[in-house]
């Protein structure tokens, strides 16, 4: 009974221990999360600009994108985007006379989670941009700054304090959403854990260890975002 809880030798980094496998899983998880987060931020920034400044058609298309993505379960989206995306790319390649390629799980995972993140990031960044006082933008324009410069020098730095709480939430969500990729068979931390648990029958211990690793990731991220928030808020009066 007790050994079902603590078969610690299964975690060792030598012999038939699963230590390295879990570490590799964690590394994949962090890579996918970071890649998807960056992709999501890029989509979010463009999406927010499109929603605020774009043409009627752009605004409508973006509205459909953010609404649909946010109303469909991540698991369904991941499967849809995964199959549809890889299928589409291979069909295109064949049309152009190339051989179909095996799209790496890493790239597919980043793309799929990035597209999902992008919808949420669009809304977070849009809200933050709208919170930047109009006068600051007008002042910048009065100084003769081009639209690009206004964005880089005024809007982006001024919106960060408003956007950061939402963006830090999105990071925490994406690190946990990487676990969903286990369902399409990509071997990140959750999948590796499941394999390890199945092979050793020490289900409880392995899932508890995985939970601990994800928790540590979250707690470390929290600290980093706290420091970041302090930095982007420098010079602002304390709210509390």
């Amino acid at each position, binding site marked *: 009974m007790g050994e079902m809880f603590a078969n610690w030798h299964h975690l060792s980094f030598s012999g038939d221990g699963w230590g390295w496998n879990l570490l590799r899983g964690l590394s994949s998880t962090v890579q996918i999360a970071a890649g998807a987060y960056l992709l999501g931020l890029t989509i979010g920034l463009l999406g927010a600009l499109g929603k605020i400044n774009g043409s009627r058609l752009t605004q409508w298309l973006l509205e459909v994108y953010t609404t649909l993505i946010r*109303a469909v379960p991540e*698991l369904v989206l991941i499967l*849809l985007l995964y*199959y549809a995306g890889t299928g589409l790319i291979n069909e295109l390649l064949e049309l152009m006379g190339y051989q179909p390629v095996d799209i790496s799980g890493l790239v597919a995972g980043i793309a799929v989670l990035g597209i999902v993140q992008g919808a949420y990031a669009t809304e977070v960044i849009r809200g933050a941009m709208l919170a930047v006082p109009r006068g600051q933008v007008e002042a910048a324009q009065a100084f003769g700054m081009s639209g690009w410069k206004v964005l880089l020098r005024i809007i982006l730095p001024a919106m960060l304090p408003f956007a950061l709480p939402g963006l830090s939430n999105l990071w925490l969500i994406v690190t946990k959403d990487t676990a969903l990729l286990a*369902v399409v068979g990509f071997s990140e931390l959750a999948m590796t854990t499941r394999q390890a648990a199945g092979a050793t029958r020490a*289900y409880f211990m392995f899932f508890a260890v*995985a939970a601990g690793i*994800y928790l540590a990731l*979250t707690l470390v991220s929290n600290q980093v975002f706290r420091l970041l928030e302090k930095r982007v808020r420098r010079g602002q009066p304390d709210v509390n």
Partner: protein
Amino acid sequence: MQWYWIPEYAPRFIDGVIVTLQLLGISVVLGMLLAIPIGLVQVTGPRWLAIPARMFCTLIRGTPLLIQLWLLYYGLGSLFPMIPEIRESFLWPILRDAFPYAVLAFTLSVAGYEGEVMRGAFRGVPKGELEAARAFGMGRFTLLRRIWLPRALQNVLPTLAGEFVLTLKSTPLAATITVFDVYGVGSIVRQETYRVYEPLLFVAAIYVCLTAVIVVFFRWLERRVPRPA
């Protein structure tokens, strides 16, 4: 695109919707019943209650729901059969089924996330209103029942609507432990018809409809609740 399979599988999709709604309904109700005290003790409770409540929220919010689900179903579920007392007890048929594990996992998840929401909600009620209630001679429980809880819930109703939509969208995870909800039925259709996209699109459409139902329900609820100016 081929949709010929819809009539054949319609009854199973209806069963799936019922399973999804049961899972959502039970875990939201039980989860909120836990979330209210979890939020409350973090605002006024003694430290020996506030600290575990805080840790519980951090733990639930800091780990993927999929891992929690697997930890309960595969982890706990693999320990139970080794205890003869449990195998012979009346609880065994329940413990062998996947649905109760899903309900437990989602209930704890709702309790963790909404416990955090309720903490903010209780804190957000103006002190003056609580003092006024005390000045009227209300006891602690009357004050909670008549003033503090209703005011807190009123303020976070829109947040809760969003949170419950998120819970609905995470229910497909239950299919990974053999619960046949909408998503699970969709997987069966995919396996039996060899169609990849159509069942997924159909399932996605069902979730969009269910989301719309939750949103409309909460809008109706918000209109019924009197709002201070």
